[in-house]
């Protein structure tokens, strides 16, 4: 469990970090919380020659509600999300998510930015950010780029970030009237990656769902939205049959595989069950 050889840089500004990424190209990797990257290096699944540690860069760790959106610095630790009163009161879907990622030790180090940039469909934030319709801000040699979450995930461990871009900020729409959200995850034990996870953010007006976005965890080769399930909900009252329909739609459109977490069939059925439960919980929160 000893990683291969690497060179280590600890830049103190984003510009400096971008300069290093630019110089070393494919050989370099950003080190954020290290909770995905370091295990991969210890198993020698990843053997980067250069590590660019961005932990010393100031000003990337914040949670701020602005006029138009909630801004989260990419280096914000999961533990900060978990402890934030603002998040737990106004962003229940995000609060749910932070609580079920790994264990407290990992959450003290792991960052929201790293969780997204890693683009692991087993990670929980991708589904949540898809459901929130988040916007990401990345900086590269040519300045800032704004990326819609739907355009961010390209595949397993693959994002639209260029090699010399650093994810700086995640922006979430502020909760509007009638909105609610929830994240539910089935795990084999606490701290496990999801067997399945469902993130939902919806708006209910006069008993009818007017907007809904659903993200799924660990049931496809890349983080995915359950668009058919969303369609099944929108324009309908979120009860009985409609929940079942949405659940079935999500179960049909995901692409799980059989492994130690369960058979493909089992996972699809869990997507159905958990989708229904997550919708119910989100709707309850609309009322609250």
């Amino acid at each position, binding site marked *: 469990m000893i990683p291969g050889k690497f060179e280590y840089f600890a830049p103190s500004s984003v510009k400096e970090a971008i300069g290093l990424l630019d110089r070393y190209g494919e050989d370099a990797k950003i080190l954020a919380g290290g909770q995905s990257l370091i295990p991969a290096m210890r198993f020698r699944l990843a053997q980067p020659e250069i590590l660019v540690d961005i932990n010393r860069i100031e000003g990337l760790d914040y949670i701020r509600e602005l006029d138009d959106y909630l801004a989260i610095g990419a280096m914000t630790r999961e533990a900060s999300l978990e402890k934030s009163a603002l998040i737990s009161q106004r962003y229940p879907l995000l609060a749910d998510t932070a609580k079920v990622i790994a264990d407290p030790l990992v959450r003290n180090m792991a960052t929201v930015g790293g969780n997204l940039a890693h683009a692991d469909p087993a990670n929980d934030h991708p589904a949540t950010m898809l459901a929130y319709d988040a916007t990401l801000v990345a900086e590269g040699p040519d300045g800032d780029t704004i990326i819609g979450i739907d355009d961010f995930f390209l595949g397993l461990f693959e994002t639209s970030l260029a090699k010399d871009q650093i994810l700086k900020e995640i922006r979430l729409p502020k909760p509007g009237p009638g909105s609610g959200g929830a994240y539910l995850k*089935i795990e084999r034990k606490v701290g496990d990656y999801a067997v399945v996870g469902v993130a939902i953010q919806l708006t209910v007006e006069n008993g009818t769902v007017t907007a809904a976005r659903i993200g799924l965890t660990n049931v496809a080769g890349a983080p995915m939205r359950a668009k058919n399930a969303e369609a099944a909900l929108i324009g309908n009252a979120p009860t009985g049959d409609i929940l079942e329909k949405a659940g079935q739609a999500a179960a049909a459109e995901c692409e799980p595989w059989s492994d130690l977490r369960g058979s493909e069939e089992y996972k699809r059925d869990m997507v159905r069950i958990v989708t229904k439960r997550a919708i119910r919980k989100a709707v309850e929160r609309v009322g609250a």
Partner: protein
Amino acid sequence: MSITESDKDVRITTPADVCGMGHRMKRKEDPRFIQGAGHYVDDIKLPGMLYLDIVRSPHAHAKILNIDASAALALPGVLAVITGQDLKAAGNLHMMPTLMSDTQMVLPIEKVVYYAQEVCAVVATSRYIAADAVELVKVDYEPLPAVVDPFQALKDEVIVREDKEKKSNHVWHWETGNKDATDEVFSRSSKVVKQKMHIPRIHVSSIETCGMVADWDKINEHMTIYMTSQAPHAHRTVVSLVSGIPEHKIRVISPDIGGGFGGKVPVYPGYVCTIVASLVTGKPVKWIEDRSENLQADSFARDYHIDAELAADANGKITGLRVKTLADDGAADAAANPSKFPAGLYSIGTGSYDMEAAHFEVDAAYTTKPPGGVAYRCSFRVTEAVHMIERMTDIMAHDLGQDPAEFRMKNFIKKEQFPYHSPTGWDYDSGDYHRALRLAMDLIGYEDLRKEQAEKRQRGELMGIGISSFTEIVGAGPSKDFDILGIKMFDSCEIRIHPTGSAIVRIGVQTQGQGHETTFAQIVAEELGLPASAITVEHGDTDTAPYGLGTYASRSTPTAGAAAAVAARKIRDKARKIAAYLLEANEEDLEWDVNKFMVKGSPTRAKTIQEIAFAAYTNFPQGMEAGMEAVNYYDPPNLTFPFGSYICVVDIDKGTGEVKVRRFVAVDDCGNIINPLIVEGQIHGGLTMGLAPALFEEIVYDENGQNLSGTFMDYLLPTSMETPKWELGKTVTPSPHHPIGAKGVGESPTVGAPPAIANAVVDALWHLGVRHLEIPITPPKIWKILRDNGIDED
């Protein structure tokens, strides 16, 4: 923690300042552990120390065509790469004996026989260089077909051990009990239930992995070995026999050990390589496994495929048990059983029930998987036996339409039948099974739970109640039957009382977290009246501790614990003589009271043990030897038979198939209790280790013999979050033959818990036609049953 029953049955004869048996003394070892001052093998750092790392096989079964170490040797800091050929040249060290008179490769020459097998060892000046060098060793393999399933293996289409004379994967056949009598009983019994079950392959997963520092002193031709060992003396003897180094030139030190659970009894290839590396380089060499190596290559536990039949008469009285079993040994029979017991103490499988006859047959097969299996927190296959009989009992009760508690009560061996001679030849020393189960039922509110279950079932909710009333067999063991590699399974204690009345106690067993430093002090305090706080307990250093066979199989209290009491009594005998001299009285006129001898009838004429100890060095009778010390090698007359009754309540999520253990009551009877606090700690840990295989843990291989659960991401150790609140109760039935009436407790909960949980889940699903579920009972297994029966969430 919740203690549902008080310590009212716990025997206490000493005041708190003496702190003998029965006191809730805090563990003497904890200050150093809590403050991070424990000293483990990986904390040993010697000047000039080298590091060893191991190249492992990516195949379960493959011919080795070539090993090219040139690139590794070219890396600065690499001193040697040791191969099987090298070991062979050094005196046939490429093979080693297992504890079960089988052989096992240290390093391969022809082929590898399991995934992650040790292929060669790299020695370098730092851990990092060694790890880099491992990557640089180029091994060419020609893959051979793997054989993962032991039933398939018995067809002998793929031979695992071509090095053996017998070209077959069948390792051995073993029987016990009376076949004819059992067949006869079955032929006249009106009710027979049958069930196949698999007790899956699991791993001890101690927090500390295995490791060693070997330090060869060329000048004095002396080898010091720091080793993660549960049995340092036995390991010293083995090292001497295998290496040819005279035993007095070997010192094995087992420092603080971070959990053993049976996994630190076997000798692993890494140890041998480390010793050879130190001999070759003349330098101290350290080897510490990483987690995956530990999980993937070190001895597994269990892996019994059981085919059981239980017979009863028309009234539901159990009459007989017939069991056939196939043991999956992996690539060598590296079990850690006493020599005469290839299937360990599996024949305890008639359990807590009185029956006329029983017959057990066990066969073992080689497969291309790591060798084993160790007695994981279990007295040699007792866990497998108890799971079998407790599942069978439940199936029989359910099949007969009888309440499983009532059924057990009807079939228990009665209190007045002890000592009880079992149909497989064991003499159970003592027990009161009815009382333990009744107490467990009262603590959990059994009758009310059954009512609740009936109501819930009406509403379509799934709730189950499971019982396990187990009997253990521990404390191996009497020398007439028990040995390991010929060494009898006695154990030992040496006590020295210092002039000022404090003492050192040295024992032949070795703690890995059980609290020996506290409990052995309490035993001696009980016998001599010296405060337990004034008694140092030492173990784990073969140069100082008396010879013993080590700690596993719940044997420390039954064997070395007895030795401590007997040695203390020898000291008391001498103390009586000195007291008589000091008090100018006849020995017969003295009586012992907690910590002093006094003249009968005149309590003011007394000498405390401290005064007597001082006199033993300063003022003793002419002709008497000075000093106060004693040693005892205790050969137990019988094993001890701890028992208990566990009841578990589960709720099942109809949507996901998840099992929630709502309540778990454990009533244990381990005879007289040395320290209730430590006993409860042992039970808490043991229950969690029983929950683990019931619901979570399993080592899984694919059809190519690749380990799919080789990290803690996929080998699912439960955490405190998965663990229910354990509710404990106790009864006390002292062992009649043990000097302090104690029985051993470390393993009861690991052994007793899995069937209680499995029985509860089956109980919740019995009305759907479910008779049995293989452990670990994971949500997908239950989900399948639910959906097959048209059950979905409301």
